[in-house]
């Protein structure tokens, strides 16, 4: 008879057995024992319903269906529990020590000179400058003569030169690229010339017979010293920082007139004075000026119509300043302990 009193032991027995179950197999067995079509305990009770009278049947049927539902729910819950346990056992088994070092995928960093040059080139190209290049062994004419430094000119002393022949030199600056460009191209000219340059200097912490320069040249109608100031300022702010200030001091380079030395506010102390700027608040960064009309004359440019400005700066020194590298030789020593820091 399917009464509460009758079914209650069945439920209790099921719960007791369910608590013991921990594997998929045991769970299947338990399901069979209670719910299998042929001989499941609950199924058997359901089959017996037919023997009951019409009055008893609805009540008993309701009770039995409730019980069946409860059993099914409990089995489903148990199945979930077992799956969770299995998953976690597998994770446990396949666990790795994530603190072990990763396999090495070693990529190299850029040489500091390349880093600086690329950054400078990127800024100037964004300002409409095109990049030009020229040979490292240069004709005297391009390196000196056309730049208003005829043979015997005292300014040649300032650039102690390595000669190949009387007529060929290892270029002492990248200025010959300016001359070569102006020979080929009529204004407007707006170029930069990065590259290696050479001096007859022995190697020490601050000198090298080979170093790097980047020079610029703008020629057009109406170009002024004020334009030089604005252009260089725009570049230096982009390269160092927006709060960089610049200062121009009159100076002399044979290929410009008027000439100037350009200082930037010290990138370390922001101009308040420190050991790097020798308490002056300023760091000398480049030479610049208006293209000397004598240079235009040599090139056959009409200097009444066109004016221009040019500047040049040493890249290696800026690298040394920026990264606080105390010895220039490190830039040419190719020591991986050094290079891997960039």
């Amino acid at each position, binding site marked *: 008879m399917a009464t509460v009193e009758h079914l209650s032991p069945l439920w209790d027995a099921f719960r007791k057995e369910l608590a013991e179950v921990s594997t998929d197999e045991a769970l299947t067995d338990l399901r069979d024992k209670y719910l299998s079509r042929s001989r499941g305990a609950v199924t058997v009770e359901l089959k017996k319903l037919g023997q009951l009278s019409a009055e008893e049947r609805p009540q008993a049927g309701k009770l039995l269906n409730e019980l069946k539902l409860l059993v099914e729910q409990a089995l489903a819950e148990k199945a979930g529990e077992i799956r969770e346990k299995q998953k976690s056992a597998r994770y446990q088994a396949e666990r790795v020590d994530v603190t072990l*070092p990763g*396999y*090495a995928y*070693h*990529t*190299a*960093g850029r040489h500091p000179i390349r880093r600086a040059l690329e950054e400078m*080139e990127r800024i100037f*190209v*964004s*300002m*409409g400058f095109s*990049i*030009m290049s020229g040979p*490292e*062994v240069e004709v005297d004419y391009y390196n000196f003569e056309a730049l208003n430094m005829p043979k*015997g000119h*005292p*300014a040649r*002393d*300032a650039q102690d*030169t*390595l000669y*190949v*022949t*009387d*007529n060929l030199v*290892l270029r002492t600056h990248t200025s010959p690229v300016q001359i070569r460009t102006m020979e080929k191209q009529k204004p*407007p000219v*707006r170029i930069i010339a990065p590259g*290696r340059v*050479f001096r*007859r200097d022995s190697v020490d912490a601050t000198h090298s*017979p*080979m170093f790097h320069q980047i020079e610029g040249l*703008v020629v057009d109608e*109406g170009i*002024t*010293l*004020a*334009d030089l*100031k*604005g252009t260089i*300022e725009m570049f230096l702010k982009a390269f160092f920082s927006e709060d960089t200030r610049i*200062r*121009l*001091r*009159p*100076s*002399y380079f044979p290929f410009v007139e*008027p000439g100037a*030395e350009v200082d930037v506010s010290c990138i370390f102390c922001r101009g308040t004075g420190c050991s790097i700027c020798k308490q002056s608040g300023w760091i000398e960064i480049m030479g610049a000026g*208006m293209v000397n*009309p004598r240079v235009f004359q040599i090139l056959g440019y009409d200097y009444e119509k066109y004016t221009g400005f040019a500047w040049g700066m040493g890249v290696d020194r800026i690298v040394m300043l920026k990264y606080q590298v105390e010895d220039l030789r490190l*830039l040419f*020593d*190719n*020591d*991986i302990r050094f*290079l891997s820091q960039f």
Partner: protein
Amino acid sequence: MNISYNWLQDFVDLKELGLDPALVAQALTSIGLAVEGIETQSNDYVFNIDVTSNRPDCLNHLGIAREISAHFCLNLRTPDVSDLPAHRPGTEFPSSVIIQDPDLCPQYAARIMTGVAVDESPAWLKEKLLAVGQRPINNIVDITNYVLLLLGHPLHAFDYEKLGENRIVVRRVAAGEKIVTLDGVERTLEAGMLAICDAAIPVALAGVMGGQDSEISLRTNTILLESAYFNPKSIRATSKSLALRTEASYRFERGADPEMPVKALNLACRLINQIAGGQTVGPVINENPVPASRLVLDLREKRIRQVVGVDVEPGFVTDILTRLQFEILNQPDRAWKVRVPGFRVDIGHEDDLVEEVARHFGYDKIPSTYPAPTSAGRFLPAQPHEQLLLQRLLGFGFYEAVNYVFSTPAREKLFFPEPVSMVAIANPLTEEDTHLRTSLVPGLVASVRRNLNHGTDEIRLFEFGHVFLPVDGAGSDRLQEESRLGIIATGTFYRPYWGQAQDEFRFFHLKGIVEELLAGLGYRAVFERTEDYRFLHHGVASRVLVDRRPIGVIGQLSPELNETFKFLQRVFVAEVAVDNLFSRPLPEPQYSPLPRFPGTERDLSFVVDKSLEYDRITAAIKSLNVANLRDVQLIDLYQGQKLPFGKVSLAVRLTFADLTRTLTQEEVNKSVDVISDLLKREFQAEQRA
């Protein structure tokens, strides 16, 4: 140049107007006379001024005082340089000056003084000299130095009695003439150098240094005082050629004031009379075959605006030019016609006057304007190529090396067969820098050596750089400058690491890198064994070819060089000429539709002669034009005890695919058989299971 603050006050009032040394230094720097330091002395301040080579007029106190007076609008006091009348007639001590080479000596002024008491200088004079670092010697020499530091004009005093026939001849010397200069060095002169001579021999190197024989001594009674103007280029050439640089040569080679000789002489005579009791004998001897002329220039207001970019008050322009002692001849419409003073050797063009105005106007008052570009900026045509290679090499873990371009025949001959043809430097500074490199390899090998010395044994470096190849032999003006890429690697490829076997860097690693670099540029590289390179192991060396042209070389460093450089590990190196490779634009990517049907892979193992080059096998397979064969990949290579002597076992993976359908097993089998038959026929390959 050392400039004394106290001395400046002889010419301009500074202290009275509150112009302390710091203010003066700031002003000088702002007008282009960079004060690099101020030395504080017990009762003076000394400015160390970096005077640019175009401004010899500022290599003295009066010149600096002139700039200060112009900047601060101060009155400038000038010393008395008027003629000192003769105390005694010229007949007492006759002399003469003959200029034989007026092109090198346009003017030579001299005066005889007698009764000179050579002695210590008075305190005020010694103090002035010492303040600026000049050692006092005796009153006569000190006075010439004093005049030099005051007016910038070099003088020289001879002992009159020591001059042969007591006279002066200014001439070019003949080769081999000799002089012992004041520094005690006997110098053999080159033909064409200008000397001050007596009747017979040189007694001074004109404008550079006096001679010992005619030097002023304590016994000197009569002197001949020289004040001349010499051609700057001649002085520079002599000074350079003798490696003798003096205060005098420094000024003459930059350009002395051609109007100064007699003035400087007069000032010196006055001082010698005052201090040493010397009496002038006869008038000033003044030989001046080529009189100096002053340049006249026009300065237009509109040119100032055109160059500087600002409007400067015309009154300011007039004022500053006047204070700088330019003579304003007249002022036509919005312009100035000016006569340039003799001491301003740097002024030769209107724009030089523009600079005078600009620097005194103040560079800091010039606004910053920006000229807009008229076109987009462009990188060099070869830059994308270099960037691509650079990025890949960095990705492969290679660092960029930067080596000097210098080399020596001794170094290059370790690598290349003799005679090594190199470009020589005419004036090398050191023995390591006598020539230019012909290859990047020696520099990279040296870099490896240095890294090993530091304990770094996993080394991967590359270098982009120029090499220099002579075209017509030594001394020629023609040479070929070529851009190359050098790569060097040694040590481990995989470091010893947990769970990962260590692997040594091998030839085929480097070959793979070179292939990948060239593929990035759109080239398929071909490799050909070579024994032509002395620096490479002849068993592990290959030319690199693209489009059938050799572009470089790759291989293992030779055992001999390993020994020379004491390398205990194998070193691999490649060098490629890049100018041609970079001349073609980078390849545009070409899209092809993705296969919709899976491909089929078949592995084929076979044994062939070890001497058979793999490239021949792939070329033969390729020549069959087997339908749908997409790829042949070497997946195994075995040589050893399981094989007969001289044999090698290869396994290749063949990939077949068709874009339009799935291939049938029969088709693929047939193709594999064709290939297998070919290998058997051509190379006697024995197929393995």
